[in-house]
């Protein structure tokens, strides 16, 4: 059994060096402040904040969430305080910790993506950008930035030019060939890809015969989606050279290790934060214990180590 002290949990994502592979998933950890009471934010690999846009967004009408078997649907509608407010009101708090802050962002058009990336690149205390491409592209007649490879290539390469910080592209799982989408992001200059974002789903209340979400459809997350997420991480790991950040239904250290074995260099914890607000720290400790027991010196050795 390895001495816990000698275990190397660090991982590299682009120019970032994380002290361990456990990050928070965007939209499930707010802007970090609410969780400081439950988790030592200094212990986290990285904090990924709620998706931001240039202007504040109101989001969708309620109901916005509904529970499903071993999962949940959400249709928050990307409600956020806007990049400027984030920089002014939330970033100072986050700068106190020596944990990288990764800002998830999105736009309605390529121009908006680029402007957002520029602003965030200039902001002190933002360590990396994660671009959420699961948004409708208003210009191209509501095709989705994340499902049409040509549009994906274009928006990622434009953002790449505008952003000198580490750029992570967050992939939508609602596609036929996820490996292709990862390759497109890599070719367009991404430093890493992260996945999965939510699977599109729907639920209907049979009493009033209406959708359970005001927005009709929403995004499925939680343990229910884990097998799909693991499969996609494995496919992306084989398709690209850049690091893959895995997420989708992680609720334990064992789940996190499953993603790492499938090919993830780092993992993100989403819905599980709602189950237990201190779960991220528990998972970090659990990974360390697993490595001690299995006598693994460096977490990097586990990435993609599944034997097929």
């Amino acid at each position, binding site marked *: 059994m390895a001495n816990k002290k000698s275990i190397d949990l660090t991982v590299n994502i682009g120019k970032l060096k994380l002290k361990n592979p456990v990050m928070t998933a965007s939209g499930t950890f*707010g802007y970090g402040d609410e969780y400081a009471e439950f988790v030592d934010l200094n212990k986290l690999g990285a904090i990924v904040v709620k998706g931001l846009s240039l202007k504040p967004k109101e*989001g969708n*009408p309620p109901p*916005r969430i509904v529970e499903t078997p071993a*999962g949940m649907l*959400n249709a928050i509608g990307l409600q956020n305080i806007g990049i400027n407010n984030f920089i002014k009101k939330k970033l100072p708090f986050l700068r106190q910790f020596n944990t990288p802050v990764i800002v998830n962002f999105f736009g309605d058009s390529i121009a908006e993506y680029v402007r957002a990336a520029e602003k965030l690149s200039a902001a002190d205390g933002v360590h990396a950008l994660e671009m959420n491409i699961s948004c409708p592209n208003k210009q191209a007649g509501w095709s989705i930035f994340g499902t049409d490879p040509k549009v994906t290539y274009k928006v990622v390469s434009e953002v790449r030019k505008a952003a000198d910080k580490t750029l992570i592209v967050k992939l939508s799982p609602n596609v036929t060939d996820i490996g292709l989408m990862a390759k497109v992001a890599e070719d367009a200059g991404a430093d890493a890809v992260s996945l999965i974002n939510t699977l599109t789903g729907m639920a209907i209340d049979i009493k009033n015969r209406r959708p359970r979400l005001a927005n009709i459809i929403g995004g499925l997350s939680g*343990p229910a989606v884990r097998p799909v997420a693991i499969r996609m991480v494995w496919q992306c790991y084989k398709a690209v050279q850049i690091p893959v950040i895995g997420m989708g239904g992680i609720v334990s250290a064992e789940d996190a290790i499953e993603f790492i074995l499938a090919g993830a260099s780092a993992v993100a914890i989403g819905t599980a934060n709602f189950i237990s607000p201190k779960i991220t720290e528990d998972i970090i400790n659990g990974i360390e214990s697993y490595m001690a027991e299995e006598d693994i010196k460096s977490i990097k050795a586990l990435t993609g180590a599944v034997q097929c």
Partner: protein
Amino acid sequence: MNRLFQASVINNEKLVKDHYLLTLHPLEKIKKPKPGNFFMVAVNKGLDPLLRRPISIHRWLDGDFQLLYRVAGKGTSILSRNKPGDILEILGPLGRGFPLNIKSENIILVAGGLGIAPIFALAESLAGKNLSLFYGARTKTEVLCTRELNTIGVDPVISTDDGSLGGKDNIVNVLKRHVTRNPSLVTDHVLYACGPGPMLKALSMFAIKYKLKGHIALEQNMACGLGTCLGCVVKTSKGYKRVCKEGPVFSIEEIVW
């Protein structure tokens, strides 16, 4: 004082079909909840159901506390099977409670169904003031806590949907009739209410008409309970606000129905 704590079940008493009173003993010191605050209770360790269930503080017993709940579905049904000695993992107290620091001595309380859970806590905190409680329920047996209400000196006006106790009417109409007959009932009064959405809506319309100030406790599907998922919003005159964080208690005039 951690807001994520374990509590052992002292008692999980079935009061009447589907209605339970759960008495809990926290295994560590917790923050004293205010009336209107709630807890997110993990009903089991598995993944079905996945999320915690929000339940209001019903009664604070000097460190121990009580929740009053109705079996509505899977989660509360699992909760109802807890026995003395079982351990529950709980998050809370959460949210913004009813404002207690008010000048008015005359309080109207309105409770619909399980809305009595937090309203009782509130009544206990406001004991000493002039409290008029209007309490509606589906049927006689579901009129709860009447003995405890009497103990703190509250004698509720009751109505039931089936007329088995009190008038056969909804409680908002009952209140309206009282006020129509005697408008001074509402001058210099403050209103507090909790109950089903349609009741709160009707009550709010009425209160606005009579320029009656007050606060209502709302419900919404919740995931985190901490303000991070943005799942539990309601529409207010200042945009969407989170029931778990800015609420569950809102002033009557700010809600957009």
